């Protein structure tokens, strides 16, 4: 057996906060276990602006939705186009026009995929250098507020 496999698995463990892994083969037996007593709080949802209930909430601390881990992720190999600035997304150049892009549109670093308005300035958003392919998923809606790092599109 190769030590590399172990390394890969421990990396997986670290990244996914696993405390136990069991692998067997001929042909397959997998057992994964997550840290149960997640002592840290679940990070605030990666959306913009999480409003805390200011009033005493009987059942506070909204449980983070269970991450969809097990599903085979068809977007796993996609690249992300993220927002470089907090602001408001516009998917089309003006209310009467068509969207800059949609699922299936061919994009690369020269293609404007949306506008983000911040401080009255409409910033043209293009995929980072090296991102080339078709839009696989649009993750924001027209007029939505986003923060730095919000994923706007998946490109594959």
């Amino acid at each position, binding site marked *: 057996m190769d030590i590399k496999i172990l390394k890969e698995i421990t990396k997986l463990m670290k990244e996914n906060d696993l405390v136990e892994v069991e692998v067997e083969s001929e042909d397959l037996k997998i057992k994964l276990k997550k840290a149960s007593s997640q002592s840290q709080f679940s990070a605030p949802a990666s959306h*913009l602006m999480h409003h*805390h209930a200011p009033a005493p909430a009987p059942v506070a601390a909204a449980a983070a939705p269970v991450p969809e881990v097990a599903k085979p992720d068809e977007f796993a190999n996609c690249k992300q186009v993220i927002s470089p*600035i*907090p*602001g408001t997304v516009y998917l089309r150049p003006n209310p009467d026009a068509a969207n800059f892009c949609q699922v299936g549109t061919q994009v690369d670093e020269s293609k404007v995929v949306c506008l983000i308005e*911040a401080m009255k300035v409409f910033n043209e958003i293009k995929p980072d250098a090296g991102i080339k392919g078709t839009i696989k998923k649009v993750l924001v809606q027209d007029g939505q*507020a986003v923060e*730095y790092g*919000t994923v706007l599109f998946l490109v594959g």
Partner: protein
Amino acid sequence: MFKRILIANRGEIAMRIIRTCRRMGIETVVVYSTADKESLPVRLADVAICIGPGPAKQSYLNINNIIAAAELADVDAIHPGYGFLSENSHFAQVVRDCKIEFIGPTSQAMDALGNKAKAKSLAKKAGVPVVPGSDGPVKTQEEALAIAHKIGFPVMIKATAGGGGRGMRVAQNDVSLVSGLIQAQREAEAAFGNSECIVEALVQRARHIEIQVIGDTHGEVVALGERDCSTQRRHQKLVEESPSPVITPETRKQMCADAVKLAKAAGYWNAGTVEFIYDLDRKAYYFLEMNTRIQVEHPVTEMVTGLDLIREQIMVASGGHLPFKQEDIRTQGHAIEVRINAEDWQNGFSPSPGKIGMYVAPSGKGVRVDSHCYAGYTIPPNYDSMIAKLIVHGDDRAEAIRFLDQALSEYIIEGPKTTIGFHQRLIRDVRFVHSEITTKFVDETFLRG
């Protein structure tokens, strides 16, 4: 009054501002970098907006993104905390241009006081003492001698174009002044092509004493007493206390009056700190500079005055009158703050970021801990190494030191190396206990001893 305030900062000061806002019924918006995603302020603020990646330049110093977040969250005001953009007059101006109030002084006042030379001449004009010396370059040996006799030895000879110690000489008497002036002028000519030198008083045994002031937009300025920050390492404050153990009530009163004079001369409002160097030999104080923001060590003043300085900052920024006059200010007892940093103090105070394991902060009567840390928190390497400010308040200095000793001994922080051990040793040192120290004590005596 403001309905919603954006906090353009992180760490303990963001926590500190959230606390006061919540007490005032004001909503809080924090902006944060991806490195601070799991931080307490992000969790506790009403709204949190990510504005960029870890490096401060792209997040906490990114004016565009901060303003964009402020507009998105529709805030009434921005509190800059300390550090980052807090003394950036351009930022203050942009904020105000966007019809958002900047919780701090005007950009003009920041500019007037932010430049050391400008601030010094403003102080001089206002009659606030500055380090005495020649009025510009000395032309002759006779002039230099006359000045030295007037201000008293020792004096410092300094090339006006100087830097890095070149063109500098210390003179203890007439002979060394004359020879030193010649040498300094030669050295300056050779190094900078400019032989001009000034002569000024040399403060050999210095204390760092600063006056907290707060002003409103109606021209009222009040001094809230002093903080003695003489325990420094490489000009970084380690311990701050109030009142200062070395000045007389008369000197305190005078320093407060001078600080108010300077602030008024600059048209200053909001919280600010006028820093003085205090000469233990000449028993005189000289203006050094003014910090145009809230300071790390502000809790020391809060403990002895009973005021909430962040609250006062917000009140005056919203146009309110100061709710007290100079004669209303009373201080009670003695407060000391120590900075607990994630640093390996036995190894040159090198930073020791990383994950905190067990964490138990001290508590009890007269003990206050301002911190954003908790068990399981990872101190990111991107920013400063502060874990907490531990502040104690006793009836007198001896009691405050006892409280501090006890609090340090029960502070448990596992994981990063911290400066707790340093402070424990320091506050048991007889020279600290008797406050027989200067600003050089830690570097030149304590850490060598």
